């Protein structure tokens, strides 16, 4: 499938809705927990077993984004969105069959493995295209799409819960809910498939295809640069710090104020979690758009530097003031979202647009690592502190110190980012065509 080229007069404002239709759909993954209790009671599963489809889905997201990125660059966004639609929707249909026949392995295979490929392919599908349409505002453009991934759970969570309430929580009710999800998401994502277009390749005065301007580095070449790995550390530390709060948000706020005159109820804690989701989403579009004005390196200085300051304030004074605790946590979560949304534009600044989608896919392995690291640090330390007889805010003190240290490491990594050495640049190629992945010949002194 060749990339669909925009006809004359095509508006670039049609591309963000195409991206959003995919990201709002695949963001459903974060609402998987809605299906966990019904599955556990209908199929007699443990909590660990019912989490398997989600966990496998996230692993497949990382793997397909990392290894499928080059294919996405080669075949274009429509191909990638079609793969995402087919995989994500079939994942639900297979899960429906699994629930109806009480074959849980089919749900793991369907939602986790097949659907997970849809998650990874869908996540990176519009990134490169958006950056090409909005060269003046790449941060805002990718921020809109990646905000959609956060928004997907906000839609799916109440929607899926209402559906299960209507259809019932036995295996046939769950099967019907999966079936409706598969069909509805297929229709919703179809808009993206039909709508997405790549910009028309510019031509020179003689009618020949224009050459890609500025620095251009291939995905393979990017992996050989220190800049890629420095950004990997930046993303990993920023995400770990965000997950550090997100993972245990409800018990954390309850523990912090348990011994005060104003303890936090379970209902209020749920409200706090919802507020964190709002900050996460707002950070994706807000901070990412701000990066177009103040620069990518500066915005990551804010995420990592001010993030460390917020963690310090929570650690020192968090249990003495509820508004301070809430405010600091919201800021950290907005930086968490902002970090995700700004990184494609940072990659574009360093490596050009040539294979930015594939490079972004490979960088997402930092997300997978942080997804393991963040919860591990916070949960393991909280458990050890509890065993040692501590309670309240003291359960989290050590975790916060580690998070501050990680953010400092990320801050230093960001400071070390420099423009990519010309020896990694690819040979000039016509815009929209395959560039030659041959390093430019440099004089010995270069």
């Amino acid at each position, binding site marked *: 499938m060749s990339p669909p080229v925009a006809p*004359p007069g095509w508006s670039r404002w*049609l591309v963000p809705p195409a991206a959003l239709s995919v990201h709002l759909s695949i963001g459903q993954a974060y609402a998987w927990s809605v299906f966990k209790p019904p599955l556990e009671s209908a199929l007699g599963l443990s909590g660990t077993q019912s989490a398997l489809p989600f966990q496998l889905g996230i692993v497949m997201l990382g793997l397909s984004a990392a290894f499928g990125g080059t294919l996405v660059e080669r075949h274009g966004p429509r191909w990638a969105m079609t793969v995402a639609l087919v995989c994500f929707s079939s994942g639900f249909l297979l899960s429906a069959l699994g629930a109806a026949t009480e074959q849980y392995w089919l749900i793991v295979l369907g939602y986790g493995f097949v659907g997970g490929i849809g998650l990874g392919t869908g996540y990176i599908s519009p990134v490169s295209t958006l950056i090409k349409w909005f060269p003046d505002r790449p941060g805002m453009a990718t921020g809109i799409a990646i905000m959609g991934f956060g928004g997907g759970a*906000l*839609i799916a969570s109440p929607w899926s819960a209402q559906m299960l309430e209507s259809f019932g929580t036995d295996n046939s009710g769950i099967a019907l809910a999966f079936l409706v999800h598969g069909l509805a998401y297929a229709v919703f994502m179809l808009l993206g498939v039909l709508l997405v277009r790549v910009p028309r390749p510019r031509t020179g005065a003689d009618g020949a295809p224009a050459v890609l301007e500025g620095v251009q580095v291939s995905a393979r070449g990017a992996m050989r640069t220190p800049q890629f790995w420095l950004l990997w550390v930046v993303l990993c530390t920023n995400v770990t710090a965000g997950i550090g709060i997100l993972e245990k948000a409800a018990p954390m706020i309850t523990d912090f104020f348990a011994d005060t005159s104003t303890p936090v109820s379970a209902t*209020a804690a749920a409200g706090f979690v919802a507020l964190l989701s709002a900050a996460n989403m707002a950070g994706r579009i807000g901070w990412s758009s701000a990066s177009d004005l103040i620069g990518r390196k500066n915005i990551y200085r804010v995420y990592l530097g001010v993030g460390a300051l917020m963690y310090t304030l929570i650690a020192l004074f968090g249990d003495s003031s509820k508004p301070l605790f809430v405010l600091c946590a919201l800021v950290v979560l907005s930086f968490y979202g902002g970090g995700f949304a700004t990184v494609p534009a940072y990659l574009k600044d360093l490596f050009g647009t040539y294979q930015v989608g594939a490079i972004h896919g490979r960088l997402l392995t930092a997300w997978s690592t942080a997804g393991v690291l963040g919860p591990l640090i916070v949960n393991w330390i909280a458990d050890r502190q509890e065993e040692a007889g501590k309670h309240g805010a003291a359960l989290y003190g050590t975790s916060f110190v580690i998070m501050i240290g990680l953010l400092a490491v990320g801050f230093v990594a960001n400071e070390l980012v420099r423009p990519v050495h010309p020896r990694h640049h690819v040979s000039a190629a016509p815009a929209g065509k395959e560039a030659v992945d041959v390093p430019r010949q440099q004089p010995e002194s270069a």
Partner: protein
Amino acid sequence: MSPDSSQSPPEPPSRRPLIAFTWLWVGLPLAYGLYELVRKATQLFTG
């Protein structure tokens, strides 16, 4: 000059209705999600 050569190229069709439709397509579900989120978030202050 021939009549053909004096004609300007045809105007591309207006995309405004399509833009409005596509933003509504994604905006309405997102607005529903945000409404549910705000309902839950207010529990922090009332719960």
